[in-house]
């Protein structure tokens, strides 16, 4: 799986550069609204990066990734209720709980057929959704506000600038993690298991173990996105992350280009932009959006990354 210089990579790096420099533009007068939009974009990009690992590289369509957003977000909200604002604790809780949830549900779901996996992940996410709805103490379906944002000693994520660069740093770090993982032995076995599971068994590998590992990492990454989301919106309710949200994450991954490095960022960007433009246009923006989804399903193969790299066909996508 080579990594040549392709249009998608150039654009990816460019977008990262712009994101890195955006706060400076606000000094010279850029509306703070765009900073907020960028943070939202980056959080979704991280969530989509997590999903892409199991969906794109692993080949399993998770329709329940919003559950990890919930787990990560409530890892901030619940300690909040007890006046705990330690950022390390919040983040650590988000990571551990997401990983545990992924491990337990993955152990059961990954043994089933592909189509069943979709339904089962949806069901498990629904279970988590109901769990949080029923927790009246922590807001239930009304949600709960977050007054104690994550404090890491040197900085507090309640401050927009710190949150911005912390999120940006996470995006870079986690994208880098996926990049390395994909090119390692683990990544090769995962891809091989997606393409030819029978062959992998016959070559001495146990695909299930690798897929479970990928699912755990995938859920944890999206859990971190949930942690960031809680700090960003400073209010969490289960409705914010229902299964529609899971479907939107799938949309981001698919539109950007599944199993590519830059796909999640492109997909998140497209979604945030589309959502922003369309909702300004009409109250019923879900209708054209829905039609757009159908069109993508029928016509697009490989998403934006494939579209951008149209000419370089000899080598597999990065």
């Amino acid at each position: 799986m080579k990594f040549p210089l392709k249009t998608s990579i150039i654009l990816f790096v460019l977008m990262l550069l712009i994101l890195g420099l955006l706060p400076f533009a606000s000094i010279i007068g850029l509306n703070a609204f765009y900073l907020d939009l960028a943070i939202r974009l980056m959080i979704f990009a991280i969530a989509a990066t997590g999903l892409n690992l199991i969906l794109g590289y692993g080949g399993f369509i998770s329709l329940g990734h919003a559950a990890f957003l919930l787990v990560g977000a409530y890892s901030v909200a619940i300690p909040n209720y007890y006046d705990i604002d330690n950022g390390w604790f919040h983040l650590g809780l988000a990571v551990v709980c997401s990983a545990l949830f992924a491990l337990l549900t993955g152990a059961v779901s990954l043994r089933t057929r592909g189509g069943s996996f979709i339904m089962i992940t949806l069901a498990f996410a629904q279970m988590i959704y109901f769990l949080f709805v029923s927790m009246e103490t922590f807001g239930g379906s009304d949600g709960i506000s977050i007054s104690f944002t994550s404090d890491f000693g040197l900085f507090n994520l309640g401050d927009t600038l710190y949150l911005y660069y912390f999120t940006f740093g996470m995006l870079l770090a986690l994208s880098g993690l996926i990049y390395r993982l994909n090119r390692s032995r683990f990544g090769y076995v995962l891809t091989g298991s997606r393409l030819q599971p029978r062959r992998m068994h016959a070559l001495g590998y146990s695909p299930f173990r690798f897929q479970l590992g990928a699912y755990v990492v995938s859920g944890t990454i999206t859990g971190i996105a949930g942690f960031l989301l809680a700090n960003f919106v400073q209010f969490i309710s289960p409705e914010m992350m229902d299964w529609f949200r899971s479907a939107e994450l799938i949309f981001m991954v698919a539109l950007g280009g599944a199993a590519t490095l830059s796909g999640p960022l492109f997909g998140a960007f497209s979604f945030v932009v589309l959502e922003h433009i369309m909702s300004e246009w009409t109250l019923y923006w879900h209708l054209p959006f829905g039609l757009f989804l159908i069109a993508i399903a029928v016509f697009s193969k490989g998403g934006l990354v494939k579209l951008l790299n149209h000419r370089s066909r000899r080598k597999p996508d990065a």
Partner: protein
Amino acid sequence: MLEITHITKHFGGVFANRDISLCVEAQQIHALIGPNGAGKSTLIAQISGELKPDSGRIRFAQRDITHFTPERRNRLGMGRMFQTTALFNELSVLDNIRIPLLRSTARRYSISDWFYKAVESDSSIRKTALTMLEKLGLDHHPDQLVAALSHGEQRQLEMVMTLATSPGCLLLDEPMAGMSSEESARMIKLIRCLKNDHAILLVEHDMHAVFDLADTISVLVEGSIIASGTPDEIRRNAAVQAAYLGTR
């Protein structure tokens, strides 16, 4: 080396395999022939571990492997070629060979080996892979996608991949399927060469290849073995002629 005793498998009320026993010795080619639907694929699936027999035992390398997973059988030294081409289609030729080599070149539980080091930059894997490709003349364009290879080259590549895990026993499920006579000749030569170091169970429809290569032939008809012996014995066997060779 590979010993199958009294293997029986049924689906619903239909017996796909009925009390099958056979033996594959080291440095021997045991061929399994029979008409379509005789139960050859079912038997191979049970030997490789994809199906569990209803009764009977499979012994391999002095171990009872009847309930072992396919991957565990491979680690004991069993290699397999599939009936239909099962290459990693989106990947290059080189990457296809790399995948079977990953385990043997990793220090067992090293986290860095498995999660961090880039496979591409591993020179020992690359060298081993290219050497293997060279033996079959496929090393000219290692970075091309496997989809670009001809059918015969693809089957050869699969053979290389199967050999990459250094198996002692090979299950070859119609290796010459869909090959031209020239490609088949090359494959026959290769299999004959492999005999020196492997025990081979060969399932094939190409009778020319079977009678050329096999030391022992077993004939499977409607789930049971009706005859087993040297090629000459089989050629002369009346029951076999009636049930199988005669109709071809």
